[in-house]
């Protein structure tokens, strides 16, 4: 049940066809884990908190550095040296007091990933490396939790939504490929675009409206401002999701 305050706060999105008070109540009940507290996490968490997602857990074990501030807009000059999750939680609570924010200062590993995502309705991939993305992909598949992938490089962005057992997963698309773990170029507008797309997908999934970004990897070429798609299929021999069956 929405309060009078909530009805006013979310009035403009409740007006959207297919959204309504029922959609807003679904958002209020939703529990979302955002893996990462940096560039992609900033826009996705801001817009999910603003939209009224009931509970957001943010996991990251980094501290804020000066070189983060060109893109990680949840963190400000005053936050340099603070734990990113604390900095993020503070801003998000101020943005929307009605949203529960949980800050987990941990590195996501094979040992803890399953426990971290357990009990959540959706996983947002806001990581900065592919190996951890594969851990999250696998854990989300095992626990039957939808997984919202995003990644960036320079002005290039990628996004895809994964519904366990039904659509292609990250491993189906990338086949375990990794990229060198080195400092990568990026400008803030790229994770802003991709993080907002991830948040839009999360909201659409929870509310149950629109068409999801499934079985297609969105490719954003920010330099030419062109969006293209790579059509992908669920791989029946996929190491992560092949055993789950479902449509190809």
């Amino acid at each position, binding site marked *: 049940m929405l309060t009078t305050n909530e009805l006013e706060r979310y009035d403009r999105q409740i007006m959207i066809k297919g959204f309504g008070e029922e959609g807003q109540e679904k958002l209020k009940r939703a529990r979302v884990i955002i893996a*990462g507290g*940096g*560039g*992609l*996490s900033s826009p996705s968490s801001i817009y999910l908190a603003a939209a009224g997602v009931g509970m957001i857990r943010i996991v990251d074990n980094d501290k804020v550095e000066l070189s983060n501030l060109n893109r990680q807009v949840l963190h400000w000059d005053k936050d340099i040296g603070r734990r990113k999750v604390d900095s993020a939680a503070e801003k998000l609570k101020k943005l929307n007091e009605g949203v529960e924010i949980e800050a987990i200062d941990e590195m996501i590993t094979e040992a803890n990933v399953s426990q971290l995502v357990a009990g959540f309705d959706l996983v947002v*991939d*806001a*990581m*900065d*490396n*592919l190996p951890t*993305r594969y851990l999250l992909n696998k854990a989300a598949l095992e626990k039957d939790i939808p997984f919202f992938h*995003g*990644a*960036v*490089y*320079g*002005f*290039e*962005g*990628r996004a895809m939504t994964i519904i366990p057992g039904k659509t292609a997963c990250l491993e189906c*698309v*990338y*086949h375990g*490929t*990794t*990229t060198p773990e080195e400092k*990568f170029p*990026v400008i803030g507008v790229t*994770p802003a675009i991709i993080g907002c797309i991830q948040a839009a997908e999360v909201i659409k999934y929870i509310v149950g409206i629109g068409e999801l970004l499934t079985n297609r*990897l969105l*490719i954003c*070429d920010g*330099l*030419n401002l062109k969006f*293209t*798609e*790579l*059509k*992908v299929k669920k791989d029946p021999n996929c190491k992560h999701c092949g055993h789950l069956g479902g449509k190809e």
Partner: protein
Amino acid sequence: MGIIKINIPAYMQSFTNNMEVVEVNGSTVGECLNHLVKQFPGMKKQLFSKNGNLFENIIISVNGESAYPEQLAKPVKEGDELNIVLIVGGG
């Protein structure tokens, strides 16, 4: 063997005289990429490792669909459109 178009990603266009689209000939993805490299030798280091394999972090799509697992061996025909997709992991 007809004309196939390869869309060049923005970050690689400095190696193709800023051309966004390059027309090539070939009956497989590999032949098309070789023809691309013949026209623009700077593309070789962007696509292939020293031993001549396509970099692992590159996906080639044919008419929007991933060429995996055939990749270079995948047949193409006149009018097909190839895209070079870089796998990225930053966040």
